C-alpha cells in the first residue's frame, strides 16, 4: 500500500466525502424523499438517541475489527480479501465452543474469543502457504476460501452444529451468563466495542511505533529493499496473514458472543467486504480505518431508521461505502497520474 503525504490524503478524503454526500442526496431524490428529511432520519437513527448510538456501536465492533485486519494486511503488502471467510471461521469456532462453556463467564469468554481468533488465523493459512510455496496470488485463494467458509457455515448449521431442539438451520444458543450484557440499559452496545477500540489502539501502536511494525511496513512498501537489508520477508508476510485472519476471526467470535448468541445461515451481511472498504477509506491507517468503520456502522444503523421513516431503501448503506472507495481510488489515481 503506497503512503501519501497527509495533506494529499486529506484532499482525497475531502473529494470522496463530497462524492458520497452527493450520492446520498441523489439516492434520496431517486426514492422520492426530501434529502433533508432522509439525512435527518439517517443521523437520528445513527446517533440520535441512546438506543440509536447503541445500535451503531453494536454494529461497529465487527467492522472495526475486520477493518483493522485489512489495514494490517495491506500495510504489509498482503492483499487479504478473505476477511469474510475468516470472520465466518471465527463465528463457527465460537458457535462450536460456546454452548459447551459454563462456569466463570470471564474464563469462558476468553476461551471462546481465543478459539475464534485461532480459527480466523487458521482459515487464512492455506492462502499464506499457497502464496509462499506455490506463488498463488492470495487474492484468488482468499476469495475461494470465502466461498468454502460460506458453504461450511451453511452445512454446519444444518448438520454437526444444528440446534437439536429445533428444525431451524441454526446452532445452539450460548448460555446467557456467558454472553455480553449491554453496557447501559436500553442500548445494544456491549463491552465488545471496548475490545475493538483497545485493539485499534494496539494495532496502531504496533504498526506505527514498534520495530516489528516498521519491518511489516517495510516489507509491504519495498519488498526487494526489505529483503536486501535482511528482513525475513516470508515470515513477516505469514505474520501479517495470521494476524489479520485472527482479527477477522475475533470479529466473528464477538458477533456470536455479543450480538447474535448463535450461528445461522447466511450469517454475515458482508462484514468482511465492508471492513475492507473502511480500511481503504482510512488509507490502511489503523485508527483512520477504525473511524471509517464506525462511520459505516452508523450508516448501517441510520439507514434502517431512514427506510422506516422516509421510505428511502436502506440498501443505501451498502452503496455509499462502495462509492466512497471508488472515489478515493479515482482521486488517488488522478493525483499519482500527475506526478512527474
Amino acid at each position: 500500500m503506497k503512503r501519501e503525504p497527509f495533506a494529499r490524503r486529506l484532499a482525497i478524503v475531502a473529494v470522496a466525502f463530497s462524492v458520497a454526500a452527493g450520492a446520498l442526496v441523489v439516492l434520496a431524490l431517486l426514492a422520492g424523499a426530501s434529502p433533508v428529511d432522509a439525512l435527518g432520519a439517517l443521523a437520528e437513527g445513527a446517533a440520535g438517541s441512546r438506543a440509536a448510538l447503541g445500535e451503531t456501536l453494536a454494529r461497529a465492533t465487527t467492522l472495526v475489527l475486520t477493518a483493522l485486519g485489512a489495514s494490517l494486511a495491506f500495510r504489509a503488502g498482503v492483499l487479504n480479501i478473505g476477511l469474510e471467510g475468516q470472520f465466518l471461521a471465527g463465528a463457527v469456532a465460537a458457535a462450536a465452543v460456546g454452548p459447551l462453556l459454563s462456569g466463570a463467564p470471564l474464563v469462558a469468554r476468553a476461551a471462546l474469543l481465543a478459539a475464534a481468533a485461532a480459527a480466523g488465523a487458521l482459515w487464512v493459512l492455506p492462502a499464506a502457504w499457497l502464496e509462499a510455496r506455490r506463488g498463488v496470488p492470495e487474492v484468488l485463494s482468499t476469495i475461494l476460501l470465502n466461498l468454502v467458509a460460506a458453504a461450511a457455515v451453511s452445512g454446519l448449521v444444518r448438520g454437526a452444529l444444528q440446534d437439536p431442539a429445533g428444525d431451524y438451520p441454526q446452532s445452539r444458543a450460548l448460555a446467557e451468563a456467558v454472553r455480553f450484557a449491554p453496557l447501559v440499559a436500553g442500548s445494544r452496545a456491549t463491552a465488545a466495542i471496548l475490545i475493538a477500540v483497545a485493539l485499534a489502539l494496539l494495532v496502531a501502536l504496533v504498526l506505527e511505533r514498534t520495530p516489528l511494525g516498521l519491518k511489516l511496513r517495510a516489507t509491504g512498501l519495498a519488498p526487494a529493499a526489505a529483503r536486501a537489508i535482511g528482513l525475513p520477508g516470508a515470515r513477516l508476510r505469514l505474520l501479517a496473514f495470521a494476524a489479520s485472519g485472527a482479527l477477522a476471526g475475533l470479529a466473528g467470535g464477538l458477533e456470536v458472543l455479543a450480538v447474535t448468541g448463535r450461528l445461522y445461515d447466511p450469517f454475515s451481511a458482508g462484514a468482511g467486504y465492508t471492513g475492507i472498504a473502511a480500511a481503504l477509506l482510512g488509507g490502511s491507517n489503523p485508527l483512520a480505518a477504525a473511524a471509517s468503520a464506525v462511520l459505516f456502522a452508523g450508516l448501517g444503523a441510520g439507514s434502517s431508521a431512514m427506510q422506516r421513516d422516509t421510505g428511502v431503501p436502506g440498501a443505501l448503506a451498502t452503496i455509499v461505502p462502495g462509492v466512497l472507495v471508488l472515489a478515493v481510488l479515482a482521486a488517488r489515481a488522478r493525483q499519482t497520474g500527475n506526478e512527474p
Partner: protein
Amino acid sequence: MSGFVAVTLLLAAPLLLAAAGELLLERAGSIQIGLEGTMLIGAFAAFAAARSGANPHAALLAAAGAGLVAGAAFAAFAVAGRADPILVGTAWNLVAAGGTAFSYRLLAGATGSVLEIRTLPPFVFGLPAAVVGAFLVPAVLQVFLQRTRPGLRLVAAGENPLALEAMGGSVVFVRTAASVLAGALGALGGALLVLTVSPTFVEGVTAGRGFLALALVVFARWKPLRLVPGALLVGGATALQYRLQAGGGTRIPYAVFLALPGLLALFALAAARGRGGAPKALGTPAPRRRAISPRPP
C-alpha cells in the same frame, strides 16, 4: 431430455457465460473480482426490462447493454485510471449489491410480493436458445484467442504488455475492450438466471455465482474450453442439491457441493506450478507510454 440433465445445463449456462467473460478479461491482464456485482446488475436489468413490458429476448438485450456500460465503468477506474483492480472490484461488489437492492425496492415497493416475469421460450430439448448459445461461447473464445489477430493482441496485453506497446498497440484499449465484453457476458449470465431458473429478482439473486465463476476461471487454468467441464460439474452439483432438497433427503451434501468449486479451484492452484497458468501480467497496471519511450537526451 431428462429433467436432471436439462436443469444441469440451465444452471451451468449462467456460470459459463460469466466465467467466459472473466477469462477474456483476465487473459488481457486485468481482473474483475466484482463479477458477482456485474451478474447482479445484469439480472436486475433483465428483470426491470421485463417488468416494463419487454419480451424475454429484449430483456436479455437490455441486460447485455447494462453489462457493456458496467464493463466500461470498471475499465474507467481499473484500466484507464490505473487503480488497483482488486480494490475497484471489492468496491464494485458493494455498489452493485446495494444499487440493485435499492432499485428493486423502488421498483417493487415494500410489498414483499414476488414479481414474476416471463421466462425465455424453449428452443431445443426444452432449453432456450440463449442457454444453448452459452455452450458455444468457450469454443468461440478459444478460436478467437488462438487464431485471430485481435485475440493474439489481447493475450499479449496479459502476458507481455510492454511488447504490445512496443508493437504500437495500446494495452489500455485492449483491456478496456475486454472489460466491456466481459461486462456484457457477466450481465448476460445474471440475466439468464432470472429469465430461466428463477423468474423473479430478489436481493442477491446470484447467490455467490459470480465468485464461483471466478473460481471456474482458475480451475480451467485460463483455458476457455476447460470452463465447460467445470461449469457442468457445478451445475450438476446444484441440480443434484435441488433434487435432494425436493426429495426431502439428507441436506449434508448441499454444503459439500456448495464448497466443491472453491475447493477444486484451490487444489488446481496448489497442484499447478507457479501461478497455475495465470497470465503473467495479471492484475498489473497498463504501462504508461513514457515508461517505454527512450529517455530524452
